[in-house]
C-alpha cells in the first residue's frame, strides 16, 4: 500500500495466474509480479497465517534469484515460484505448525520443489491432496482403471506371498502395482496416492531385494497398504464425481508405519530382530495371524507351533491333508502374472454391444437369405455350397462376438479369498478356502451383480457354517474347516457351488425361528428343502449371536433377489453335521434369454422360459369367474388367477374363449398365475435388448428382441405383468362390454 508501483493491487490468485502465463525471459512482467508478491508478503504479515507469508517470501526470493540471474535454471526457478504462490493461495492445504512440531523451513521446501520438478515423484510436505486443483480428467480416468486392476492383482499376489513368502513373481506384481500407481499419480498431481504408493513401494523394494521377508507384520502392512490404496482410489473417484471426499481414515498413521516398518515388526516380534524375520516368520507374525492361515497349507504348524526355518521356507510341503485338491490361491496369482504378458486392447462396452448387435443382424440377414425360396428352389449345388459356407463363418463370428463379453470369474473369486481370510482371523477359526474353476467365464455385466451375493454367502459359510475349532475337534473333524467354491459349465448355464464342511443347516432351528416370526404355519408339514428355502425370506436370521461379520437377518433374501434378477436359481442341500452346499445356476449371459414365443392376435411376445411352469389348454370346467370380474383356474386342486394377455395389452383379434386358447402358467418368486394366449410358436434363444431410451419404462415389458423375420418382439416381465393385471382388476371393472366401442387407437390428447 505504501507505494503504488503496480497499477492495481493483485491478490495471490491473480499473481499465480499471471506467473503461469509468463515465461522466464519476460523480465518486465516478472519484475512487476515480484513486486506484487512483496506487497502481498508485507500485508499478509498481520492478517494471514505465518506460513502464507513464508511461502510468499520464498516465491519472491525465487523470482529475485531469477531476475538477478543468480538462479541456475530460470525456468525451474519460475516453476518453483509458481508452485509456492499456488500453495500460498490455499493456506488450508498447508499444515499450520502444531504445538511441539518443528516449524517447516520453507526455503527447504523451495529446494525440495526444485528437486521435485526434476524427479517425478513429488513428495512435498503439506497435506496430501486427492486431486490436483486442475485435474486432467481424461488421464485420471484412464489411470483409475489401470490402478484398480493393479490393486486387484496385487491383492491376489499378496495372498500368495502369505503362503510362499519367497515367490518372486508375486513380489514383483505387488511392487509393480505400487510403482505404477506412484509414478502416474505423482505425474498427475495426486499427491495422496503418490505418497502412499511411494512408501509401500519402498517396503516392497526391500522385500524384493531379499532384505526382509513378506511375512507377519510386513505382510499385514502390505495388505493394509493395498486396502488403503483401494480406499484412497475410491475417495478420488468420489471426488471426481463431485462428491466431497476426504482422505481415508488412518491414512497418515499407515503412511507413518510404512515409512518405518521395522518399528512395527520389532514391536510385534520381540526379541527377534526383524532383519532375521526370515528365520522365524511364524513367530514373528502376531498370534492372530497364525490363527488364520486361510488357504495356507501351513495350517498345521498352528497346532504344533514349530517355527523353524524349514517350515517357513517351504510351507507348502507341510503335511496338510485337506489342501490336496487344489493349491487354491497360488495358482490364480501365478496365472495372472503369466497372463499379464498377453497383449490386450481395452474397448468401450458400448462399442462391443454395437458389434454384437450387428453380428446378430448378420445372422438374421443370412438366415433370411438361406431360407429364401430362390436359394432353396434353384437347387444349384454351387450356390447352396456358398450359402452354407457363409453360414459357417457367420456362426463362428457370432460365437466369437458373444465370447468378447465374457470374463473369467477369477477376480471375483480372489476377493472371496480375502474375505475368508478376514473372517477366519476375526472369529479365530482355522479355515481353508479352496476354489476351482475360476477360469469359468460369465457375462461381464453379470459379474458385479453376482459378486455381492457371493461375498455374503461366503462370509456366512465361514462365519456360521464352519464351527469353532473346539467344536470341530469335539465332533471328530479336522480342526481346519474348508470352504469350497467351484464354478463349472453345465448344460448351457454356469453353476457356482459353494460348500462348507461345517455343521450344516439346523432344520429344527430354522423351522422354530420361522414359526416364531410368523413366516410359516406351524401345523403345516414341510419337506427339508422347503424348510431350507425359508432362509431366503426377508428378515430371517437364525444365528443367536449377531457378530459384526454377519447375522443381521438381511442378506439371504437379497442374495436370492440378485440371483433371480440374473434369471438364475439357487438350491440348497445340507446334511446335519457334514456341511451345506449352495448351488447357484446362472445363464451364460444376460444378453441371451431363453424364451417361449407366444402369439396373441397378430402380435408375438416372448416369455422367459425360466418363468414358465407349464402350459395347457383348459377344460371348460376348470375356469370360473369370481364376482363377475376376476377369473380363476383350477389346476390340480389349486386355484390360480387367470389373466388374458389380449385384455392387458389391448390386442384385437385374439382368441377370447379360454377353451380355444392356451394357458401359460407363470411363476415368479411370490406365486403363480395363468396367462391366456392364442398359441405357442416355439422356443428360441433371443438377444434381449432395451427398447430405446426414448420410450422409457414400459409396464410388464422388460425389453425387446429381434425375431427371426427381423421384427421386434416384446419380452414380457412376468413379475410386473402380474402386478399390472392385478392393478387393472382392482382399479376398475374390466371394461369388457364397453371395449369394442372404443376405437383401437384411442386418439391422443394434444391439448395445447
Amino acid at each position, binding site marked *: 500500500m505504501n507505494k503504488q508501483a503496480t497499477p492495481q493491487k493483485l491478490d495471490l490468485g491473480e499473481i499465480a495466474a499471471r506467473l503461469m502465463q509468463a515465461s522466464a525471459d519476460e523480465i518486465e512482467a516478472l519484475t512487476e509480479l515480484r513486486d506484487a508478491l512483496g506487497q502481498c508478503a508485507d500485508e499478509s504479515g498481520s492478517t494471514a497465517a505465518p506460513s502464507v507469508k513464508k511461502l510468499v517470501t520464498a516465491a519472491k526470493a525465487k523470482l529475485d534469484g531469477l531476475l538477478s540471474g543468480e538462479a541456475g535454471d530460470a525456468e525451474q526457478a519460475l516453476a518453483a515460484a509458481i508452485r509456492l504462490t499456488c500453495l500460498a493461495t490455499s493456506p488450508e492445504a498447508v499444515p499450520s505448525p502444531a504445538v511441539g512440531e518443528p516449524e517447516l523451513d520453507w526455503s527447504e521446501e523451495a529446494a525440495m520443489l526444485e528437486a521435485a520438478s526434476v524427479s517425478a515423484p513429488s513428495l512435498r510436505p503439506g497435506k496430501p491432496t486427492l486431486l490436483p486443483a486442475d485435474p486432467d480428467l481424461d488421464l485420471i480416468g484412464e489411470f483409475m482403471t489401470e490402478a484398480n486392476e493393479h490393486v486387484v492383482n496385487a491383492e491376489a499376489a499378496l495372498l500368495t506371498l502369505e503362503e510362499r513368502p519367497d515367490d518372486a513373481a508375486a513380489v514383483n506384481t505387488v511392487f509393480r502395482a505400487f510403482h505404477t500407481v506412484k509414478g502416474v499419480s505423482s505425474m498427475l498431481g495426486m499427491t495422496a496416492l503418490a505418497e502412499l504408493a511411494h512408501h509401500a513401494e519402498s517396503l516392497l523394494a526391500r522385500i524384493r531385494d531379499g532384505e526382509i521377508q513378506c511375512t507377519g507384520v510386513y505382510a499385514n502392512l502390505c495388505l493394509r497398504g493395498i486396502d488403503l490404496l483401494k480406499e484412497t482410489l475410491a475417495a478420488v473417484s468420489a471426488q471426481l464425481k463431485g462428491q466431497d471426499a476426504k482422505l481415508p481414515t488412518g491414512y497418515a498413521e499407515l503412511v507413518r508405519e510404512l515409512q518405518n516398518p521395522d518399528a512395527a515388526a520389532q514391536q510385534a516380534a520381540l526379541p527377534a530382530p526383524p532383519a532375521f524375520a526370515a528365520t522365524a516368520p511364524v513367530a514373528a507374525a502376531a498370534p492372530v495371524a497364525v490363527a488364520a492361515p486361510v488357504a495356507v497349507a501351513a495350517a498345521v504348524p498352528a497346532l504344533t507351533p514349530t517355527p523353524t526355518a524349514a517350515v517357513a521356507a517351504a510351507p507348502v510341503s507341510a503335511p496338510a491333508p485337506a489342501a490336496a485338491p487344489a493349491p487354491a490361491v497360488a495358482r490364480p496369482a501365478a496365472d495372472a502374472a503369466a497372463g499379464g504378458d498377453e497383449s490386450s486392447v481395452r474397448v468401450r462396452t458400448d462399442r462391443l454391444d454395437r458389434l454384437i448387435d450387428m453380428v446378430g443382424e448378420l445372422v438374421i440377414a443370412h438366415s433370411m437369405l438361406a431360407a429364401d425360396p430362390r436359394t432353396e428352389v434353384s437347387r444349384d449345388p454351387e450356390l447352396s455350397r456358398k450359402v452354407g459356407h457363409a453360414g459357417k463363418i457367420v456362426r463362428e463370428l457370432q460365437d466369437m462376438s458373444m465370447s468378447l463379453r465374457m470374463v473369467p470369474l477369477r477376480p471375483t473369486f480372489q476377493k472371496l479369498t480375502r474375505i475368508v481370510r478376514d473372517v477366519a482371523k476375526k472369529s479365530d477359526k482355522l479355515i481353508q478356502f479352496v476354489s476351482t474353476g475360476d477360469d469359468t467365464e460369465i457375462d461381464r455385466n453379470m459379474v458385479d451383480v453376482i459378486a455381492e451375493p457371493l461375498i455374503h454367502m461366503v462370509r456366512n459359510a465361514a462365519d456360521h457354517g464352519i464351527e469353532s475349532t473346539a467344536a470341530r475337534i469335539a465332533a471328530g473333524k479336522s480342526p481346519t474347516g474348508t470352504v469350497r467354491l467351484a464354478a463349472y459349465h453345465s448344460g448351457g448355464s454356469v453353476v457356482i457351488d459353494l460348500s462348507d464342511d461345517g455343521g450344516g443347516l439346523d432344520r429344527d432351528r430354522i423351522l422354530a425361528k420361522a414359526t416364531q416370526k410368523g413366516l410359516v404355519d406351524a401345523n403345516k408339514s414341510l419337506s427339508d428343502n422347503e424348510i431350507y428355502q425359508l432362509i431366503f425370506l426377508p428378515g430371517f436370521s437364525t444365528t443367536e449371536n449377531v457378530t459384526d461379520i454377519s447375522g443381521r437377518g438381511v442378506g439371504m433374501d437379497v442374495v436370492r433377489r440378485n440371483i433371480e434378477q440374473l434369471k438364475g436359481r439357487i438350491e440348497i442341500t445340507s446334511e446335519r453335521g457334514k456341511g451345506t452346499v449352495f448351488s447357484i445356476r446362472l445363464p451364460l449371459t444376460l444378453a441371451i434369454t431363453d424364451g417361449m414365443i407366444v402369439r396373441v392376435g397378430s402380435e408375438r411376445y416372448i416369455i422367459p422360459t425360466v418363468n414358465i411352469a407349464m402350459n395347457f389348454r383348459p377344460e371348460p370346467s376348470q375356469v370360473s369367474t369370481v364376482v363377475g370380474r376376476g377369473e380363476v383356474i383350477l389346476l390340480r386342486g389349486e386355484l390360480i388367477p387367470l389373466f388374458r394377455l389380449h385384455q392387458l395389452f389391448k390386442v384385437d383379434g385374439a382368441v377370447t374363449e379360454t377353451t380355444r386358447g392356451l394357458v401359460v402358467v407363470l411363476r415368479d418368486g411370490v406365486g403363480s398365475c395363468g396367462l391366456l394366449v392364442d398359441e405357442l410358436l416355439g422356443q428360441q434363444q433371443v438377444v434381449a435388448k432395451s427398447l430405446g431410451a426414448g420410450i422409457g419404462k414400459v*409396464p410388464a415389458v422388460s425389453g425387446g428382441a429381434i425375431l427371426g423375420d427381423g*421384427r421386434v418382439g416384446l419380452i414380457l416381465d412376468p413379475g410386473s405383468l402380474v402386478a399390472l393385471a392385478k392393478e387393472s382388476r382392482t382399479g376398475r371393472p374390466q371394461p369388457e362390454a364397453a371395449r369394442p366401442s372404443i376405437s383401437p387407437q*384411442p386418439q391422443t390428447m394434444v391439448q395445447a
Partner: protein
Amino acid sequence: MSSQISTADQSAALSGKYLTFFLGSEEYGIAILKVREIIGIVPVTPVPGTPSFMQGVINLRGKIIPVIDLRAKFGMPTQAATRETCIIVVRRLDLELGIVVDAVSEVRNVAAAETDAMLDLGGEISAEYFLGISKADGKVRLLLDIDRILSTEDVIELSRR
C-alpha cells in the same frame, strides 16, 4: 412485431439447412443436423401401455428404437402407410427416435430473412413444438423443434427409467 430485435435474433438462429417433409399437404422442416438417417417404413411392433403417439418400436439394424407417429402427436387423423411413408431417424444426445412422416421432400437452405417466429394460432395448435415458420417461395413450412418434441413432458415422463 413488438420486439423487432429479438425477432431478428431468432430468425438468425433459425437459418440453416432443413430436411423438409409432408404430413398431408402441409410441409414441415427438421434441422438437418438432428437427422441421422431416413429409412422406408418397416413393420412397427406396438408397445402396450404407451401413449398413442408412440407407435411402437422398430429394428434399426439390430438396435431397437421407438417410433413416434407425428400425425398422432399433432392430433391429425392417422393414415395408412403408403409407398412414400418414411421414418426419419433423429438423435438428441443418446436418445434415438424414429418419426413417421407421410413423405420426405428435400433439403433446403433456409435464410434468416425468410423466417418468422411461430405465430400464436390459439386453440389446440401446439405452437411449442415449432421453432418458427419459413415462408420462402411463398410457401409456408413449419420448422420443427425436435428437441421440444422429444423432451415434452410426456416423453420425459416415459424416459424416466
